[in-house]
């Protein structure tokens, strides 16, 4: 099913939590709503589910506005952050719930319900757990029961609210790729809410980055990551340094040094964003590069984290991967040169530019 959100807004009291949201999720697509807490992403998901109602705007399911329909009439599968499994029911009864409560005319026969529950538990790799109670399951298992319960009603769209938030890191990674495969197999339109950028980038076909009740960018993960539309998106998508620069005749100037060359030619102050792992450390005697001095070095296994001060005074953080380290680690006081591999420049006149130093 196709989901469309049109000019949707919502306030709680005098606080505006969503304004002018436009979103379209195609049939079978996996969409992630990514944003910090308070960005309105969960509220948007709940509005799509019918657990919350918008003040204005449309919620379209295959082109039909369902904005005024109650949750129980929308046929959506909702997976809650804390699973919300019914504790007094067995796994079987939890999964069967959505079928058992149907009116007599629509309810499948008992044997048919049992068969479907068996199939779903097989699908979520919990065959044989029918008689257990939720309290007897691990977090990951509960999560999968919640998913099976949501899938039992043959939902038109699957909505997941921070589904891995309560799991530990290893289980979370396993569940992620498993969910990805399952969603593909079922070809079920799905919307996931998360504040974890890795989760969003890895799972989704398209990512909507949200902040302060607005969608800042909605695109495929590679685009969102490589070409963030706004400084805020850059900030949110991982460890970016911000440097005040000047763009002059296509050259990006930091102090008096040319950091990069852009296609556009404006003359204005701008912000340069560069992620800590997109900076290469060069020896102090290298032919080019920004001069910097090491303030602090923190060894961290896969990469070493450096705090550096540039010649013109601003500080920069750099993560150097292990393979790029040769000989001894740098120590506080050492001088190096920096090469910005990938960066983005945002200016009032310039708009946004993304560069790869070549």
């Amino acid at each position: 099913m196709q989901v469309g959100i049109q000019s949707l807004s919502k306030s709680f009291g005098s606080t505006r939590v969503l304004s002018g949201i436009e979103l379209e999720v195609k049939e079978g697509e996996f969409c992630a709503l990514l944003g910090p807490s308070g960005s309105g992403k969960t509220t948007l998901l709940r509005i799509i589910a019918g657990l919350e109602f918008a003040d204005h705007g449309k919620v379209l399911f295959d082109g039909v506005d369902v904005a005024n329909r109650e949750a129980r009439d929308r046929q959506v599968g909702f997976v809650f952050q804390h699973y919300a499994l019914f504790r007094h029911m067995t796994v079987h009864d939890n999964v069967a719930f959505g079928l058992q409560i149907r009116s007599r005319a629509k309810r499948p026969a008992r044997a048919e319900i049992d068969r479907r529950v068996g199939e779903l538990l097989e699908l979520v790799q919990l065959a044989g757990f029918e008689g257990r109670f939720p309290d007897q399951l691990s977090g990951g298992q509960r999560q999968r029961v919640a998913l099976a319960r949501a899938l039992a009603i043959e939902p038109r769209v699957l909505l997941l609210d921070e589904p891995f938030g309560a799991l530990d890191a290893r289980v979370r990674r396993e569940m992620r790729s498993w969910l990805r495969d399952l969603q593909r197999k079922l070809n079920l339109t799905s919307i996931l809410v998360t504040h974890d950028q890795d989760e969003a980038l890895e799972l989704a076909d398209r990512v909507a980055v949200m902040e302060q009740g607005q969608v800042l960018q909605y695109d495929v993960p590679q685009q969102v990551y490589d070409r963030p539309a706004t400084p805020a998106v850059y900030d949110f998508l991982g460890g970016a340094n911000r440097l005040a620069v000047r763009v002059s005749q296509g050259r990006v100037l930091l102090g008096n040094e040319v950091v990069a060359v852009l296609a556009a030619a404006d003359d204005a102050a701008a912000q340069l964003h560069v992620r800590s792992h997109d900076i290469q450390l060069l020896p102090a005697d290298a032919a080019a590069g920004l001069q910097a001095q090491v303030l602090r070095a923190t060894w961290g296994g896969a990469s070493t984290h450096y705090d550096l001060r540039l010649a013109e005074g601003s500080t920069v953080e750099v993560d150097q991967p292990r393979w790029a380290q040769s000989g001894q680690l740098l120590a506080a006081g050492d001088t190096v040169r920096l090469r910005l591999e990938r960066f983005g420049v945002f200016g009032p006149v310039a708009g946004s530019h993304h560069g790869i130093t070549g």
Partner: protein
Amino acid sequence: MPGFGLAMGVTLAWLGLIVLIPLAALLAKSLGNGPAFWWQTLATPRVAAALELSFFSALAAAAVDMVFGLIIAWVLVRYRFPGRRIVDALIDLPFALPTAVAGITLTALYAGNGWLGRYLEPLGIQIAFTRVGVFVALVFVALPFIVRTVQPVLQDLDKEYEEAAASLGATRWQCFWRVLWPALLPALLTGFTLALARAVGEYGSVIFIAGNLPMVSEIAPLLIAVKLEQYDYVGAAAIGTAMLLISFVLLLGLNLLQRWLRRGRM
């Protein structure tokens, strides 16, 4: 387990001193004139009627409180309204009020010339000095037990459960009956058990409003007091043990029901 020996020792010593020894003394006293006398005491119509009244009105009062206590707890937990804290504090008053005061107040209210009694009496409803009066007093004293046991459970019962049920297609009624009710039932039963225990042993508030007519509105605890005044200690102890036995069987049954309801939960 560190401290197990000491803690267990204290537990057993205290339980023995405070609970078991007095109960054993009661039992020994009640059988002082032999088992036949014990049975004869209980088998008199007056004692049987008192026991029946005590237990049936306690059961009825606890049951009625279960319904209204649940509604009150629901309102206090789920809604925000001006004066909620005051209402919340009012719930504990029956706990705190000396029972005799409660009894006198209720009697004054429901007597033929009381605030409520004067409107009820013309309708042919007499509450003071009848079995209904006993029931009314017990409803009053037992209410906080239900509200206070259900409230915390209701507070922990996240709205997510209702939302999950709704998203799966449940109507409001199905949501209540299949999701909320089973989750609340163990707490309700605990409350019911406490309310029942309190109501069975209640004395002070009942004796004023009941009128204490033998065979009609005389409760078992009062009958014990009557026997004591007549220096019939063995007879009083016999009624006491009977109440103890019936209570024990009821509470044990309720506990087993609880355990069955909580199966599978940690």
